[in-house]
């Protein structure tokens, strides 16, 4: 009887701890080898055969295809530079320059990776179409209401994710944050 009770306890603990930690690890995005620059984080290793088992499990679960390392690298931002989570009802300014790349695209997704419906039917910018300042920098306003200049609509959603993809870029596995990788700043402007 004791044996039965004991083994039952052990198996219950094993299932709870094992599955619980797996669930936590995959939901909170535990992945190794990330490069964080300001609000942006990229996992260049996810585009190589050296992708770590946690990232591999996350990719399998979400159904996305990571950008291959010979193609480019994806930086994600879920918060502004001061670590405030993005709120689709607020205005956020994304401005500055990007690291060296032949092309880049900035895209807004909901947390599940879907595009967000909006009246302007705009889901992002490419490096070709963004309007730049005289010194080559750009200012993009991410917000619910139309703005002059580069306006990326949030559609008023609660939470969103920004993805900055650099294509044909030297940024990759060996990159550290620093002068060679000037990522755009992300600042919350105003909240109703």
């Amino acid at each position, binding site marked *: 009887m004791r044996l039965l009770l*004991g083994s039952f306890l052990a198996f219950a603990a094993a299932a709870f701890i094992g599955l619980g930690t797996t669930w936590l690890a995959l939901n909170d995005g535990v992945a190794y080898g990330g490069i964080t620059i300001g609000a942006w984080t990229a996992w260049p290793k996810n*585009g190589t055969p050296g992708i770590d088992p946690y990232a*591999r499990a996350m990719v399998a679960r979400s*159904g996305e295809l990571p*950008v291959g390392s010979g193609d480019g690298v994806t930086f994600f931002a879920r918060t502004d530079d001061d670590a405030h989570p993005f709120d689709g009802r607020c205005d956020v300014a994304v401005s500055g320059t990007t690291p060296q790349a032949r092309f880049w*695209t900035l895209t807004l997704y909901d947390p599940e*990776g879907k595009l967000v419906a909006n009246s302007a039917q705009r889901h992002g910018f490419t490096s070709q179409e963004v309007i730049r300042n005289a010194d080559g920098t750009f200012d993009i306003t991410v917000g619910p209401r139309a703005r002059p200049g580069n306006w990326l609509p949030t559609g008023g959603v609660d939470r969103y994710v920004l993805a900055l993809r650099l294509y*044909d870029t030297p940024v990759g596995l060996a990159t550290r944050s620093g002068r060679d990788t000037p990522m755009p700043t992300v600042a919350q402007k105003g909240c109703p």
Partner: protein
Amino acid sequence: MIRFALWLLSGILLGGVVHLATVLLLPRMANQDAYSRLMPLTPVNKVVPVPAPSPEKAAMPFMDPAFAMAVCRYDLTKAPLKFSVPISQAYTSVSFYTRADTAYYAINDRAAGRRVIELDLMTAEQHSEVPENEEITAADRLIVESPTNTGLIVIKALAAEPGLLPLAQNLLTAARCLPQAQ
């Protein structure tokens, strides 16, 4: 009491094993991964366009809407594959993924260095059977080795502005992936 603690300890240790096992096995069990999502859309060894993502519908999450995309779901069991795609004015890339959605190779138009990206895709075994003395070993033939028999070739062409998307999509219709005649 000590016995109780020992059972609990063994449970915790076993929990660690369960954690590692589930993380490692999950990719094999997943039925919503990119390969499985694309399976119903894509016949084997044929280039098929993937519809541009929209808020209502997307083949996969986190697709870049600035790109036209086409996929060749390959199977090398019978024969190696010949792949080619003309490059666009903006940016064209070809990425290779295993059955488990791991990117193992990617090339872009600049790296290819000409108007057409052309390459042969084969398994390591098929590669070793390629006769070396023939002229095919010449540098102009790019050979890519696939670690798995099946997988995905993803071809992307950039539309620098939304109006250029049909042009990019049109370009990808010229992409070919054909099994080599034996």
